[in-house]
């Protein structure tokens, strides 16, 4: 009994402390001056462009083939299911792009969910969106497989699904409508081209791999290796370790790397965060910009600025701004025009030649 009363006495105390902590935390904060203010870059130029012709050859899909009904996007409920927390530049830009474009087009009933990297939550999120009466679904899938329950529900209501940045393993123009995204394998090949150029066709290269068991990692690795093999046999890949797409791991692995392989000439990082971690490690090891050539993929502002500073050689873009292309594709489809079953976007390339001028295009 006395123990019980103890609980009642102290539990509110703990709760109050926790809340006070949270309030104090943000109360009188004062951050460092932010030099990287988001300059109002040309929104038109930042936009994604589909590869011509029409995102590559291939089948097309019309409203009649899909079997849906025409509706007005503006007054319809539109659902967007984001896969990961908006904590990295890619996801932040992706969600923002969808929201901004919807606002621009006057779509007032946009519902946005975030699965926080849990696939089961994403399935539940999308089912929730369907229950809320969504007529169009834009999904950034966490996984490619396991979508059957959702697809069945959507198909029963003839709800078109556009998947962005990652594919769903199912039938386009049926189970889902179309996929809009980058070609990760191609990104790897283009990164290899930049590395070959930076090294003059020979040398030793280390790869900082992305998170294991992820198709982005696999494709970016295979594309890079295949291209090196066919075009520059003089380049030897002498080290490949995962740094899990994070800056901290990029730094730690690179610190080990420069100790054990001091003869390394280049580092291929499968995303910008790992590349920037590598830069921190190289600075710590007393290297100068350009001593070790770094090429990475993404096109974040920090990485493009690092090209200007001389630490990175090139960055292959993976453009996250899906909003305009996703909604224009949907609009075209609803108007009865044929749309491609797969829209591959054109990704930019940032190099020493254009980095300074294109800083505004980075995200």
């Amino acid at each position: 009994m006395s123990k019980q009363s103890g609980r009642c006495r102290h539990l509110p105390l703990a709760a109050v402390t926790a809340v006070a902590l949270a309030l104090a935390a943000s109360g009188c904060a004062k951050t460092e001056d932010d030099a990287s203010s988001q300059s109002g870059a040309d929104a038109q130029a930042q936009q994604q462009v589909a590869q011509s012709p029409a995102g590559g050859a291939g089948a097309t899909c019309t409203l009649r083939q899909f079997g849906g009904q025409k509706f007005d996007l503006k007054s319809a409920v539109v659902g967007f299911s984001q896969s990961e927390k908006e904590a990295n530049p890619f996801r932040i830009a992706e969600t923002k792009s969808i929201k901004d474009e919807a606002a621009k087009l006057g779509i007032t009933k946009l519902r946005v969910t975030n699965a926080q990297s849990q696939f089961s939550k994403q399935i539940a999120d999308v089912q929730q969106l369907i229950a809320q009466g969504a007529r169009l679904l834009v999904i950034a899938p966490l996984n490619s497989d396991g979508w059957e329950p959702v697809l069945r529900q959507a198909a029963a209501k003839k709800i078109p699904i556009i998947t962005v940045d990652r594919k769903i393993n199912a039938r386009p123009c049926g189970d889902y409508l179309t996929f809009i995204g980058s070609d990760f394998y191609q990104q790897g090949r283009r990164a290899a081209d930049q590395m070959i150029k930076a090294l003059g066709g020979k040398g030793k290269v280390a790869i900082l791999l992305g998170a294991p068991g992820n198709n982005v990692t696999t494709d970016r690795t295979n594309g890079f290796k295949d291209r090196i093999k066919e075009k520059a046999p003089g380049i030897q890949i002498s080290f490949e370790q995962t740094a899990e797409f994070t800056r901290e791991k990029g730094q730690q692995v690179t610190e080990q790397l420069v100790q054990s392989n001091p003869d390394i000439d280049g580092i291929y990082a499968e995303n910008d965060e790992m590349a920037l971690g590598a830069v921190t490690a190289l600075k710590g090891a007393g290297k100068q910009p350009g001593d070790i050539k770094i090429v990475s993929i993404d096109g974040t502002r920090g990485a493009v600025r690092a090209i200007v500073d001389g630490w990175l050689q090139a960055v292959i873009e993976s453009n996250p701004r899906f909003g305009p292309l996703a909604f224009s594709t949907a609009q075209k489809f609803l108007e009865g025009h044929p749309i491609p079953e797969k829209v591959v976007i054109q990704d930019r390339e940032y190099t020493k030649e254009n980095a300074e001028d294109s800083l505004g295009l980075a995200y």
Partner: protein
Amino acid sequence: MAEAVAGRRPGLDRARVLAWAREYGVYVSVLALLLFNVVFTPNFVDPGNFRTQLVQVAPIVIVALGMALVIGTEGIDLSVGSVMALAASMVVLYLGYGPVPAVLVALAAGAATGAVGGALVAYVGVQPIVATLALLVGVRGLANVLVPQLKEISNPGLLALGSGSVAGVPYVVLIAAALTAVMAFVVRRTTFGRRIVAIGGNRTASELSGLPVKRLLLAVYVISGTLAAGAGVLATARLQAGDPTSLGLFMELSAITAVVIGGTPLSGGRIRVLGTVMGALLMQLLQATLIKHDLPQSWAQIVQAAIILAAVYAAGNRGAR
């Protein structure tokens, strides 16, 4: 009874071996792995390399020191990784006032989180694993809300903390070494240290003998939270960026592993400070060995599991006590 007597001699030897392995196994393993690397890893014997290993292990050591205290009381602190993230976000939020205030606020946030966990454990009677699990989730969330995205840091004072050194020894390593020395002293030579061990050994007896058990428990969690925040500050200074999203992820597991293979039993009642440091070093060397030989790091996890099981086996066989 007869059976016990008959089995006595070999049983005693086995117990002795296990007791020895429990005390010194981790030291021998670290030495063996060092020797392996000296012989088989190119460029291993190099001051720069040793510096790299020590710098990378320093935050884990600092967190594990606090964890060892908590585990010594038969508790556990799962919130340490999230506290590191909270410290990172505090540094980002308060760096405008300069590095010293920012670091102090970060440490205070760690102490406050520890106080919440400690209060729940000591005064409300919540199980440590439950109380600190709630904090693991909630504090990470709070850190993310405060600073939703990685933010780069350019304050020279804070960066110096991460990358500066005295006579070739990085500040980060010096701090970890100093804290280890203080912790070893506290555990072995102070009343506070002995009382903590006593609580872990037998809480009821400690209470009956008039020890201020609740206050001591609260203090232990506050220390753990403060140390974790300190580790978060150092990791942030080293990364030159505040990253509450991924900083300290799975740190609780690394710290618990270091403590357990260092010879501190999860059942409390004994704390091995140097063993804990060696446990952290063993994990670090293992990871470094795999990276330097370009082997998949997934192997490190499998080997770590084997080491943990071996440590638990050695610790579990102290029936002779």
